[in-house]
């Protein structure tokens, strides 16, 4: 059996060099060989075939954000009911009171956002 030495890895090193060299060579050569032609339309950013209109950076109404984030909040609340429903009998009265307290907090929050007018779409 041969003794292990770093010289044994020379073929591996050569293979890595050839692989990397091929990639670099190809990248350079394609840039030289390919025809490059420009035009105003060709250098345009978008390629759907239709003129771009307006600007994407415009303010969006806060109501979209409010509705979306409140939806996520109450959606997560509903998710917590699933483990409770599975363990409904084991948790007994104590569990029921805990969930009522949990929902109570949420209802308080819901009353607050309702009074604040966060859910009013047209104002």
């Amino acid at each position, binding site marked *: 059996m041969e003794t292990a030495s770093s010289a044994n890895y020379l073929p591996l090193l050569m293979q890595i060099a050839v692989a990397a060299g091929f990639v670099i060579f190809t990248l350079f050569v394609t840039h030289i060989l*390919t*025809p490059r032609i*420009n*035009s105003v339309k060709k250098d*345009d950013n978008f*390629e*759907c*075939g*239709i003129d771009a209109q307006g600007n994407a950076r415009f303010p969006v109404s806060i109501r979209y954000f409010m509705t979306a984030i409140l939806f996520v909040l109450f959606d997560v609340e509903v998710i917590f009911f699933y483990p409770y429903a599975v363990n409904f009998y084991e948790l007994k009265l104590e569990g029921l009171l805990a969930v009522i307290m949990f929902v109570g907090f949420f209802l308080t929050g819901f009353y607050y956002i309702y009074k604040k007018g966060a859910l009013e779409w047209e104002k």
Partner: protein
Amino acid sequence: MGKIEDLETINGEGYQLTNLDKAIALARANSVWPLPFATSCCGIEFMATMGSAYDLSRFGMERMSFTPRQADLLIVAGTISKKLGPVLKRVYEQMAEPKWVLSVGACACSGGIFDTYSVLQGIDRIIPVDVYVPGCPPRPEQIIEGVMNIHELVKKESNRRRYSEEYKHLLGTYQIEIDQHGEAK
């Protein structure tokens, strides 16, 4: 199909020489990336052409490109209305050089049965077309033959053609302005 055996070579002991243009053209012909611009029934035939029974992948064309920047071959399959004309023209203009156009079906070639006010009577009114495939719709075999004719054109293309005055003039006849020497704007 272009095979490496078809290439004219000068063979010697331990070396093989060929023409750079021909080697590049052969490589290009075997890896044409199509951009399908399918608008109607011919598009369905084109799907069959891409499917397992006919399998365009045999020609190195399995990679459909849905951005014109990465495509070599624009396959226009279907009716092009006059309203869609400018869109098609812009998509063609934004394709990277070198580029070819395959017009599939009677509608793309000549407007077909839609001899009306709203339909473009052939896409060659707005962009240069390399190969026409007739039929309403053409069978996948016909589309493949059209593609093979494109391959023949690709193999014959000189690497300097896209820089030539003739090419600029050709695009000029379609009101396509190009800058053959400039940098990107």
